[in-house]
Each structure stands twice: as structure tokens, then as C-alpha cells.
């Protein structure tokens, strides 16, 4: 794999090369992700087609690694049918290499909203807060005097969160990634 990344670092110096390679990779990744998400949710092509109000043959076409005529409206319909969101943004070339390196079934799987730990119901379990209530809890935990903060610790096991807060900024993304890794 290292060999491939090294080869691509050299080959991508050519502009035509990198745009063509990325186009092929992005098309194959999108088609494969539709298939992976459908299988993750144990849906047949027919069932996904019904949810997205499309024909089964259209799903089959969209799941083909050679498909290239993507439309934003079709992707939005599929995203909704699969319970995920579609992200549109420009990226730097440096971000492509890890995507190529990490490309596999696992990296393409995404939880639907109902199973997304960030939106899981707020729970206090074994003295640990769930990620869903982090922003509010962090504000609460780190406001007021130290005594006031200590008093709140009977509700939330604060030590754990404070330690994390002291280590690095408590961005939702960091905490989300941490939770997912756990």
C-alpha cells in the first residue's frame, strides 16, 4: 500500500493525471458506498428502490463502479432513503491519498440517524455522560467556581470529561471521533 501511495504522490504531479484518477476513484467509491450502505441496512435493491421512489434497475445502475452521470437530486433522494446525509464540499489533493488508502467496506459504512451515537438519547451511565449531551454539559461543568463544579459532579462524572477538556479543545468532532473509536 505504501508503494501505491508513493507512486500516486509522484504521478499526481501531472494535472491531467490526477483529475482523471480522482474522477475514476470518486465514481467507483460513490457506487460502492451506495451498495455498502444498502447492505449495511440489510435492504435489497428493490427495497431501496421503493424507499427512494426509483426503479430497481436504476439502483443497480447506480451501484455499478463504472457509473459516472451523478446528479445531486438523485444522491439526495438516496441519502434520505438510506438515512444518511450527502456532503458537498471541495477538498485538497492531500486529502485524497488517505481516502484511497482507507478505501474498504468498513470506511464506507455510516450509521443512519437513529443509530448515530451523537444523537443517541442522553444517558448517565456508570457515572459517564453520553456524547449526545456534551455541549450543554461542558458549558455547565466548566462554568462557575470550582466548588460549584464539584457539586455538580454527583450528576455527571466530571473528572473524565475535564481531563479530556484539559488535554485538548472539546470540539464536537474530537469527542464524536473519540466516542466512535471507543
Amino acid at each position, binding site marked *: 500500500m505504501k508503494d501505491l501511495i508513493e507512486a500516486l504522490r509522484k504521478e499526481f504531479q501531472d494535472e491531467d493525471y490526477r483529475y*482523471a484518477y480522482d474522477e475514476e476513484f470518486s465514481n467507483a467509491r460513490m457506487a460502492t458506498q451506495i451498495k455498502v450502505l444498502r447492505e449495511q441496512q440489510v435492504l435489497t435493491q428493490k427495497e431501496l428502490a421503493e424507499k427512494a421512489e426509483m426503479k430497481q434497475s436504476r439502483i443497480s445502475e447506480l451501484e455499478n463502479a463504472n457509473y459516472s452521470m451523478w446528479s445531486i437530486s438523485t444522491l439526495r433522494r438516496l441519502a434520505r432513503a438510506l438515512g444518511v446525509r450527502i456532503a458537498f464540499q471541495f477538498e485538497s489533493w492531500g486529502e485524497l491519498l488517505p481516502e484511497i488508502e482507507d478505501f474498504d467496506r468498513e470506511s464506507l459504512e455510516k450509521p443512519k440517524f437513529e443509530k448515530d451515537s451523537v444523537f443517541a438519547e442522553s444517558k448517565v451511565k456508570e457515572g459517564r455522560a453520553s456524547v449526545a449531551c456534551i455541549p450543554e454539559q461542558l458549558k455547565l461543568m466548566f462554568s462557575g467556581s470550582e466548588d460549584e463544579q464539584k457539586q455538580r459532579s454527583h450528576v455527571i462524572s466530571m473528572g473524565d470529561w475535564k481531563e479530556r477538556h484539559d488535554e485538548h479543545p472539546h470540539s464536537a468532532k474530537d469527542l464524536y471521533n473519540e466516542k466512535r473509536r471507543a
Partner: protein
Amino acid sequence: MIQFPRRWRLYDFVDNDGKSIIKKWMRGKDKDIIARFNQKFDMLERQGSDLPAGLLAGTKFKHVDKLRIFGKGVTWRVLICKGPISNDFEFTILFIAQEKDRKLIPKDAEKQADENRSAIITSSNRRREHERLN
């Protein structure tokens, strides 16, 4: 990150002069085309043909499949087989054809690919490890 060995190995059929047919065919081609071929071969080497659906399509020859590459208004078909020495972790590039109106050029491309496959089974030196296109 733990590095796993690549699951699939890619080989090139070599002609009577011992030259890789794909390497020879690719000489002088645009960077755009070379990139598209390399991407498909990288995908095949890393994932095989199961995860990316439709990467390989069948032909009238049982053991010969075709990979589709579209670039600069032309559709190319790379004729490939699993194995043929070890079917569990090898692919071999057998022949390259153009596709027009759903027909291959040359017409007998699939047959030639099948013959090349047989030649490898007879003599394993009719192929060598795939050389990256550049």
C-alpha cells in the same frame, strides 16, 4: 495502522518477445488515459472484484472477464482472467480492445484473450507481474 498484504496480485500477459502487452499498448497514450487504467487496476489489486460492483463483466468465454475504461470519448475493454495459476489471489491482463456500439474491436478480442490464457496455463513464463503504467 496495521499494514495488511495486498490481497490480489496482478499479472500481464507477455507477447512472443517477452514484452507486456498492456505496457506496449499503453506507449504514447495520454496521461488522462493512463490514470484511468491505473485506477481500475489499483482497485482490482486492492479489493478484487467483489466490493466494487460491476468492475468486471463476463464475456462469452467462461474464464474471461472484461474491465471497462472510458476516456476521451473512447471505451476500452481490458480482458482479464482470474488466475489462471492461482484463482484465489491473482488476476492476469490478457488483451486490450476498444468497444464501439457494444462490439469489440478487434472482433475476436475475447477469443484471443482466451487463447492467451491457455498459453499461460501451458507455460507460466507467458506472463509476469504487472508493471505500473506511466
